[in-house]
């Protein structure tokens, strides 16, 4: 199957097989531009009784057919190329079903080649189950035991700079050989192992591993101490993901024959889109994709891309783990009514065992959104902790592969420098009111100074990410016009204050010349309607001790972008942000904030 020439493509069908839902979108060329036509979805069918991912894909496509009034399927075959009003010219897919791509990585020094290997795997869209290194503090037999237990989909072995010592690499290869690791899926095939370390040790690694594993060798991901070269390892991971892992997941062999473009791991595809936004607009971006099983966080600061995945933070399969990691009080603090611990625990577990259910009542929706705040917060904490610079060496890496390294171990994620925060994933994209998504993002990420907020309208960033590899024009057009919903901007002063005392005085000059002044007390939220596509000029004057980006107590003039929610002045406090400890006070504050943004249909009160 060959990829059609971009100029000849009239219609594109793209699916994303998530761990819970399979999403299909239909894109068509209308005049000179590509637009989203319809979207369909169906539960993912990796589970019994189907155990075949293509069933869910077909179900999602059938919904697209129904909604678009167009025939795409001939039985269980996608009609390609388009002929008249039937079929599509291109079919592409991403996947994170079946737990995604699970990898173990290994380096010699944990904080050097170990970290580089981890970044290569994360950048390729994998979940890193463990980092094994010579100096990770475990005894050799403990490492061997761990490798045997893990059963990853793939192992990335790195270590040493080119021309350096080979003995530590040999040691790691010997540990791997002794563990004789088995692949997670399919008993009858050898575990793929990628070697991307010191090129002088290739022969040693081959001698030890070639007969026990499906060994592939690629360029060293850390050829010299000062430079990372992650792309060859990432590309190799993608190739092996297709060849080995996908081919053994239920139904994927069939799915792979439907598309001329390799199936990409969902997070890898989302990362591509986030990088593109940051590059094209020259801005700092944080993107989050909260799924059923995992939450991915992507960031681009100063042109440097990072990705982390929180493997067990999600809203269905992993919802119970959010409770275990965040703790009940942290979830309950966001719920503006009384609910017993006993009741909440059972509800969360029932969601875990029946992951495809949706909230029917407002109370259920609020609880789900409270859990999502904690899942997002924890995932972001993990991202900040991992997105740190290398230790005191110069960098010469490409945007997509590297971290800034000006300071040792300092996080690159600076909330005060963040320009755009994009949310994606069911709980954010499908929130019945966009203000709900805006408030979830504010509460979980606590952006500082001035930040634009957006959501992926119907969760199609993964499909557009993979589309950008074969048809960048179509991906860009759909992304700008149909995918990203600009929610508006938030203005959040940093610093301590006293509840109820004026924190900000703002003068606004609207598009139509109208002027307005307002003051926002500390501890309050204030929403100003500024429609999508419009901006408002603002002179924001914080009180002494508070900073909106120009320094403590100093006025800042800024143009604020509008959106479907509007401009939110968030004076609830940053560094510190805290909810009242007193129960009554907390419940009334939450209700006040929800009312300020008109978050729920009826005021939810204690």
């Amino acid at each position, binding site marked *: 199957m060959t990829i059609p020439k971009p100029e000849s493509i009239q219609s594109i069908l793209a699916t994303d097989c998530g761990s819970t839902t399979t999403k299909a979108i239909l894109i068509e060329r209308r005049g000179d531009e590509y637009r989203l036509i319809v979207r369909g979805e169906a539960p993912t069918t990796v589970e019994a009784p189907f155990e075949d991912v293509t069933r869910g894909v077909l179900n999602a496509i059938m919904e697209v057919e129904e909604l678009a009034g167009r025939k795409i399927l001939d039985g269980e075959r996608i009609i390609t190329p388009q002929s008249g009003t039937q079929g599509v010219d291109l079919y592409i897919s991403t996947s994170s079903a079946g*737990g995604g791509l699970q990898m173990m990585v290994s380096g010699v020094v944990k904080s050097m080649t170990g970290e580089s290997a981890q970044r290569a795997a994360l950048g390729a869209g994998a979940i890193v189950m463990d980092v094994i290194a010579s100096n990770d503090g475990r005894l050799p037999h403990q490492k061997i035991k761990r490798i045997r237990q893990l059963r990853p989909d793939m192992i990335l072995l790195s270590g040493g700079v080119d021309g350096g010592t080979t003995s530590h690499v040999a*040691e790691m290869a*010997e540990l791997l050989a002794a563990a004789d690791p088995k692949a997670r899926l399919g008993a009858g095939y050898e575990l793929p192992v990628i070697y991307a370390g010191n090129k002088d040790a290739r022969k040693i690694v081959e001698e030890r591993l070639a007969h026990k594993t499906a060994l592939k060798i690629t360029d060293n991901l850390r050829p010299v101490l000062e430079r990372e070269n992650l792309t060859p390892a990432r590309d190799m991971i993608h190739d092996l993901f297709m060849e080995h892992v996908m081919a053994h997941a239920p139904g994927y062999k069939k799915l792979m024959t439907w598309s001329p473009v390799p199936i990409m791991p969902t997070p890898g595809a989302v990362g591509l889109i986030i990088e593109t936004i940051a590059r094209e607009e020259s801005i700092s971006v944080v993107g989050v994709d909260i799924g059923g099983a995992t939450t991915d966080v992507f960031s681009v600061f100063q042109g440097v891309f990072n990705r982390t995945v929180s493997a067990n933070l999600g809203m269905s*399969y992993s919802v119970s783990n959010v409770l275990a990691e965040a703790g009940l009080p942290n979830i309950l603090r966001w719920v503006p009514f009384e609910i017993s611990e*006993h009741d909440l625990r059972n509800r969360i*577990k029932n969601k875990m065992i029946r992951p495809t*259910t949706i909230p029917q009542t407002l109370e259920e929706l609020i609880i789900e959104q409270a859990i999502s705040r904690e899942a997002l917060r924890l995932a972001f904490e993990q991202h900040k902790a991992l997105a740190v610079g290398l230790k005191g060496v110069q960098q010469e890496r490409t945007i997509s592969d590297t971290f800034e390294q000006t300071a040792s171990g300092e996080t690159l994620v600076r909330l005060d420098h963040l320009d755009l925060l994009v949310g994606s994933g069911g709980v954010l994209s499908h929130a019945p009111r966009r203000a709900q998504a805006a408030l979830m993002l504010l509460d979980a990420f606590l952006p500082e100074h001035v930040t634009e907020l957006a959501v992926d309208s119907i969760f199609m960033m993964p499909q557009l990410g993979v589309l950008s590899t074969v048809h960048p024009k179509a991906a860009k057009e759909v992304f700008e016009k149909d995918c990203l919903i600009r929610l508006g901007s938030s203005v959040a002063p940093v610093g301590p204050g006293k509840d109820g005392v004026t924190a900000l005085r703002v003068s606004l000059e609207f598009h139509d010349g109208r002027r307005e002044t307002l003051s926002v007390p500390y501890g309050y939220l204030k929403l100003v309607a500024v429609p999508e596509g419009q901006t408002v000029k603002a002179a924001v004057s914080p009180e002494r001790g508070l900073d909106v980006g120009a320094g403590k107590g100093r006025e800042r003039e800024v143009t604020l972008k509008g959106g479907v929610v509007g401009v939110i002045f968030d004076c609830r406090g940053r560094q510190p942000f805290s909810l009242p400890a007193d129960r009554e006070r907390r419940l009334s504050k939450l209700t006040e904030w929800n009312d300020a943004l008109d978050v729920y249909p009826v005021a939810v009160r204690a």
Partner: protein
Amino acid sequence: MAHSYTPGLKVSAFTTVRRERKLPLAGSVLVSVGQAVEAETIVARTELPGNVQTVNAANILGVLPEDVPDCLVKPVGSAVKKGESIAESRSFFGLFRSKVASPTDGTVENVSTVTGQALIREPPIPVEVDAYVDGKVVEVHEKQGVTVETRGTFIQGIFGIGGETCGVLHVCVAGPGEALTEANLGSDVRGKVLVGGSHVTTSVLRRAIQLGAKAIVIGGFDDQDLREFLGYDLGVAITGSEEKGLTLVVTEGFGEIPMAGRTYELLRSCEGRKVSVSGATQIRAGVLRPEIVAPRLMEALPPEARADGGEPEGLTVGSLIRAIREPYFGRLGKVVSLPPELVALETEAKVRVLEVDFGDGKRTTLPRANVEMIES
């Protein structure tokens, strides 16, 4: 979302159940096709390679890694006892002798000339696989195991803990809505699979373990009890390896929920029969639900229970469903209509819905995603 309902759990009066019984590594198959087996029959056996221990021989001997092979007194492949010398070196005109003692009983697996490490592999760990259900071997997977087939009653639960077990089934309660309490546990529960009604607590589970029960099948269980029973907060629903002395199968969900009437009646019809039970649950790719398998002949079934629905069909008017989310969680009903248009819920989300009669003659609207079909 024409297909957005959760496939239900299988509750079948009489069906064919096949179970693959495979070794984790290649080994020997001990039974042949057509052979009748009991749940306890060992069908395949192998040995897992033992754990590996390492010892830095080069450092201990004070020699270069490439010289370690010359110092071996136990060549690669030889068996050693713990403390036995595997390599030796002499220094200072042979006056001082350094010895590398084996850290464990095992075999010398490898000596690295690059790192100077010696690897000693511990003795192999025997692994056996039993038939799990009374039945017949229908397929032999060479060197891997067998497929065992049986016919009888088959019931899936929604969540479980603990591994596979078998025992005689005993219903301890008078009805599906009755909670299982310590008072229901007589001294005759040893070795049995106990069926309760709507709810069980940790203290009752502990009492059942003391009395030697093998498994408990129950409608509902509280998360707080689960945490107390396991000793930790279960984050992800991957279970089956817990060793708590008892297998637990929850048929409906978390909370106090009467067991579905049909499930209860079928279990009751198995009173006194030997059943196989597994608590293993995996709610991820390749989903695994806990189960109860009761081998029996069709003739042994009460006539009204003999009908079997066969392959699950899609959701239609008249389908029996169970609500699987608040505010109707656990209620059973019959589908009365499947409106095609999207309907706004109280949350304002617009979704595909269905209308259900919960037996009160009223039409209640539910999102299709929040029901599960009761398959027969």
